[in-house]
């Protein structure tokens, strides 16, 4: 039963198992090859940061693609991750790993508190109030000088290490973030195939119907929220080696918007959609040397067009093309 569930990445169990192992092996080989061959520190660091930000996009997609709400406040947890590392390392002198762990735990606690308030709401209300809470977080970060360093933020951290790995080295940074991203993707695939994944899908498609067949909708939504928070916090924590500074601006909604654009570009129905979107979102402007505002203008326009003509993202366009060329229709995107 499990293998046939719509939304799982591939068809039957035995054949797909091998194929998926090949995918993972390919991904590992690609990461290793990229990490070892590219030496331009700027590009490699940017790639590492892209991987970190892709984690954030994955977190947004747990809510958007998972339960069907638009999480405009997700950068709150990103900020908890960033500030967790910055405060943990800079003020308390903890090692990076411990600080990250503490930040993850803290993000789950916050998610439980915030989720209890915001998840009663749906649609625009949920989005607006989550957004509002990031506004409160930004005001707090600006005002609690003793803890957050106020508007100037926190900077000047000791060298960031994971075990023996120096994250200040661009190639190491890229490899670490890329492998963490890969692990997160595999984890989310497993979640999607679990009974909880099926419950989440039913809630997204029709909460009333889901409730009628015995799915505890509120519980599923809260679980999804609790799952998304540490992903975003991890993204925030892993972005610190790149940014080297944490300011109240991490709570800016523009941060969430970037992640949201990535998800919508790649398509919310596909687990690696946000990762593809993240790659496009950072690489295309880099290659074409776009002004940041041109980038926002272009990508926002693309999003409007996508929402008007292909609400499933580029992934849906790809599927439509594939169908047109007569190949077997997949079960994606109900």
């Amino acid at each position: 039963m499990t293998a046939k569930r719509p939304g799982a990445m591939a068809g039957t169990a035995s054949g797909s198992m091998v194929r998926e192992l090949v995918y993972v092996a390919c991904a590992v080989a690609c990461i290793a090859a990229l990490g070892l061959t590219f030496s331009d520190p700027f590009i490699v660091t940017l790639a590492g940061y892209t991987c970190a930000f892709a984690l954030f996009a994955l977190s947004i997609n747990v809510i958007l693609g998972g339960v069907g709400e638009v999480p405009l406040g997700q950068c709150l947890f990103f900020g908890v991750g960033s500030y967790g590392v910055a405060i943990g390392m800079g003020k308390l002198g903890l090692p990076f790993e411990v600080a990250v762990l503490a930040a993850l735990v803290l993000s789950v606690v916050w998610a439980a508190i915030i989720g209890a308030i915001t998840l009663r709401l749906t649609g625009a209300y949920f989005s607006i109030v989550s957004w509002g809470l990031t506004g409160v977080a930004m005001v707090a970060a600006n005002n609690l000088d003793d803890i957050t360093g106020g508007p100037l933020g926190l900077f000047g951290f000791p060298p960031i290490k994971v075990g023996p790995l120096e994250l200040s080295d661009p190639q190491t940074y890229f490899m670490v973030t890329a492998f963490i991203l890969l692990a997160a993707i595999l984890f989310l695939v497993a979640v999607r195939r679990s009974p909880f994944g099926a419950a989440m899908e039913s809630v997204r498609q029709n909460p009333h119907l889901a409730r009628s067949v015995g799915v505890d909708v509120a519980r599923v939504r809260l679980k999804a929220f609790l799952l998304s928070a540490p992903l975003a916090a991890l993204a925030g924590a892993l972005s610190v080696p790149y940014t080297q500074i944490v300011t109240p601006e991490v709570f800016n909604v523009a941060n969430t918007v970037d992640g949201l654009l990535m998800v919508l570009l790649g398509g919310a129905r596909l687990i690696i959609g946000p990762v593809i979107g993240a790659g496009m979102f950072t690489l295309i402007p880099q290659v074409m040397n776009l002004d940041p505002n041109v980038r926002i203008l272009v990508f926002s326009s693309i999003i409007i067009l996508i929402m008007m003509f292909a609400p499933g993202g580029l992934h849906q366009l790809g599927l439509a093309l594939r169908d047109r060329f007569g190949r077997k229709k997949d079960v994606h995107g109900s």
Partner: protein
Amino acid sequence: MELFVQTLVNGLVLGAGYAVIAVGLTLIFGIVGIANFAHGAFFAMGGYASYLLTARGLNYFVAVPLAALIVVAIGAFIEWAIIRRSLYGDSHHGSLIVTFALGQAGVAGLILLFGPDPLPVTSPLGQSTMRFLGIFVTSQRAFIFICSIVVLGALGLWLQLSVKGQQVIAVAQNARGALYSGIDVPWIRTIAFVLGVGAAGLAGALLAPISTIFPTMGHGALIVGFTVVILGGMGSIPGAMFGALLIGVANALFETYVSVSWTPALGWGLVIATLLFRPQGLLGRVQQHRH
């Protein structure tokens, strides 16, 4: 006592400005059924339109209504090109994302056209102040206050007394019933969207001389607008006016007596409390599930 009354008056004047923004937002939510995240961009466009017109030597008082008309025209085009095609369907979060992306694109477009720096809009009222029973109000703020009352009053009369206005109210109460009784619902929605957006443009033009204009000036307006609208009850026009005055006064009191730097968090605190204890808003009616 003098300080308290002055603060109260400041809050009411501030709230009158918010009311114009929030009424537009609540009109669009009530009639079109979307939370217009692009509202802030239209607000900024109103500011920029008034800047362009006054920079050409036009009198500010003439420029304000013209700026609102320009925003109405832009809004009508966007309604025709995008909103009508993508949002009246049943896609649950589509409208939210489209209007959000529209807002982002609008702000980015303004930055590319005019640069990120603030630009001044000069009003003939300048920095002069008026004194009334010992209370000081700058003339520009008094002008905003009067304009808001005139515009909101006219809107209220139009809704109550004209046939079109009654049709708008009918669509807000029950779109399907309105359709069955022969009301051209798509046309009413277009009117509501364009009017709502025009109100945002008007507010932008009115506030421009006080705040100067900059591309992201709409962010604050949008946030305030949403807090007001949720507080008053989404889709409720009297609620939006009441909520605006309430938030204006609360902000002014909080700034004077508690803390300036924590004031931006106050509106959200009120919103969260409202949603927890009275989810339909202070004057809203309980909404049926719309989707």
